[in-house]
């Protein structure tokens, strides 16, 4: 029996060793091939963009038939097109996008979306976003993907390709947004999306809590002062997370009456909301208001007591300065 196991393990070890060596040789070869392919497709794109006598349509057809034969070549072609697309503007950028369609790489990307593994789908969605391939119906199902990476890229697609209503996909959302996705959307709104920023109050009644919280946060980040009145009732919302975010937002929007409202609310609040109240009063209230809170702190609320102490110190420092 031992000998049998020894033989099995030995053969398996040998097979794995061979696999490791073959894998290394394969990767080395592929790396070398990649460099050559990159140069070849680079030269072709350069010709298309900068040689005025070049018949793009005919040459693209020829190039596609003769050169774009393997998936590796297609992937490298897409990568090179993305690099050119990122670095060029105006007519050249349009020409690069045109080339993408002429080489029928859009069909290749759609195939990946339909059949491939999640990490390839994620990359395909990224390509569609960057090259603004308008196929929202094809991408929409990926908003419900269980794989975060895919869902993230689907969200990015809608933000990147939208001209006026970047968060329309919220209507189709049925799964809560994670904090990471919320940050991702916020960053994309701030850095990628170029249209008009929407009024976030329209999502304050959204069925998903994460979308409501996101909307409150965005009112703060994009300084939508016009929504102060809509937010005030949310200070009494049943969910402490909503109350906490509302306090933060109203504080940032410099809502003057906030300290007096919060003073009355402090005692009945949860610990995390209390911490936020202290922050808000430190920012908008007075030292006397902070000192008023002291009598409402229970003996075992060490975190709150420490926060209050720090806030008082900071405020004293500010007033003496």
């Amino acid at each position: 029996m031992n000998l049998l196991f020894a033989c099995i393990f030995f053969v398996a070890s040998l097979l794995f060793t061979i696999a490791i060596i073959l894998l290394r040789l394969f990767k080395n070869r592929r790396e070398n091939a990649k460099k050559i392919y990159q140069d070849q497709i680079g030269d072709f794109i350069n010709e298309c963009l900068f040689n005025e006598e070049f018949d793009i349509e005919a040459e693209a057809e020829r190039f596609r038939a003769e050169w774009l034969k393997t998936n590796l070549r297609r992937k490298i072609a897409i990568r090179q097109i993305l690099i050119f697309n990122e670095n060029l503007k105006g007519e050249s950028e349009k020409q690069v996008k045109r080339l993408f369609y002429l080489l029928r790489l859009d069909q290749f990307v759609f195939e990946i979306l339909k059949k491939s593994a999640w990490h390839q789908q994620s990359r395909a969605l990224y390509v569609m976003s960057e090259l603004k391939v308008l196929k929202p119906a094809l991408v929409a199902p990926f908003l419900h993907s269980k794989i975060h990476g895919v869902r993230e890229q689907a969200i990015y697609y809608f933000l990147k390709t939208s001209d006026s209503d970047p968060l329309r996909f919220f209507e189709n959302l049925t799964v809560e947004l994670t904090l990471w996705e919320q940050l991702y959307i916020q960053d994309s709104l701030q850095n990628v999306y170029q249209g008009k920023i929407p009024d976030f109050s329209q999502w304050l009644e959204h069925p998903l809590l994460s979308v409501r919280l996101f909307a409150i946060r965005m009112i703060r980040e994009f300084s939508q002062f016009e929504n102060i009145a809509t937010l005030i009732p949310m200070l009494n919302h049943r969910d402490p997370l909503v109350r906490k975010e509302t306090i933060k937002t109203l504080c940032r929007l410099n809502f003057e009456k906030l300290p007096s409202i919060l003073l009355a609310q402090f005692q009945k609040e949860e610990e995390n909301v209390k911490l936020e109240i202290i922050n808000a009063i430190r920012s908008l209230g007075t030292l006397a208001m902070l000192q008023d809170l002291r009598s409402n702190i229970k003996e075992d609320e060490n975190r709150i007591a420490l926060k209050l102490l720090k806030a008082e110190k900071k405020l004293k420092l500010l007033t003496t300065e």
Partner: protein
Amino acid sequence: MLQSNNLPAISILAPAYNEEANIVENVRSLLTVNYPYFEIVIINDGSKDGTLNQLISTFQLIEDDTPYHNFIPSKDINRVYRSSSHSFRNLKVIDKKNGGKADALNAGINACSHEIICCIDVDCILESDALLKLIKPFLNNKNKVIASGGIIRIANSCIIEDGRIIEVKLPEKFIAKAQVIEYFRAFLMGRMAWSRIDGLMLISGAFGMFDKQTVMDAGGYNHNTVGEDMELLVRMRRVMAEKNTPYTVGFIPDPLCWTEVPQDWNILYRQRNRWTRGTIETLWLHRKMMFNPKYKILGLLSAPYWMLFEWLAPIIEFCGILFFMLLLLFGKVNWFYVSSFFLASYSFIVLFSITAIFFEEYSFQQYKRTNYIYKLILTACLEPFILHPYIVWSSLKGNIDLIRGKKSWGEMQRTGLRNSAKT
């Protein structure tokens, strides 16, 4: 996302004890971490050398009188410092009485400002996006995430410049090469698999991220064990399970942190001796979890696995060798059985190591030179004869030392990555 202004702030806690020679360079390296909002808290754990003076003079430290509260017990803090220079505004130094690594980290937790803490060894080299990758599970999970860790890599012999790895090299010494394979086995196979079934019992003390509130609720690091990193995570998980709160522990399958491993047999002995004592202490402290269905995977699978394969396996192996010697003494050895058993166990351990190398080659392929692969395969074949018996012996001695009541860490000398490897 690294440019995002909206990521949560992180407190990086790094205890330092007698690190005068490298502390300034180490802190400078930490200050270059690529993440939008973080503070670095260096805890000088009663160093007897000039660690604190070096920090004060280089980073222009002044006393910081921001109040703090000892939520978790730790030895007295002498002073807290912050930098008067704007360039180092996110640096905080705590000077405290000596109490060991666990105590130093507890002091850091009490005095740090942010809700997510990252505990690291001060001389570790972090990948530039390590913090971003490690915080992702905290933000991208439906359940509460209490901790997250990643793959630790071995930096011996690598070329390092300005606190960054610029070329990955295979260590020259056999002892370090064998540990490379050990780390492959532990991280690419073991921890990856345990994280898949949410059964992780250990986030390496060299680099791990934690939810501060959960750490405080669990009582912080335990001073009375030498395996404080494992004990903390097990206790946090136990507290969460007892509160019936859904939670998870994140694991990032990417190399995030590079550390130096012992290249000296005596230091390796001390390290493994300590790991064994830490494991036994943790398992003993949390024996209630063993085979207890209330703790699910942790009680039914992880804890029994650690008991059998991490604690008892060296003892069983040693007993087997003793029994074989007795049989040899009395001339009762069945040589056919012995040879076939030896071949089976040897080929199994080689298979295990080769599989780990295969995973590395398939996924990260960090060792780019082709001849490194042949060296690693050769090391995998030799390791069972050279390193493994030594590890078994160190573990056995760990058991004996624990029974004798030994509590010390043992001196862990490092050659210093930044100085030795810079070329």
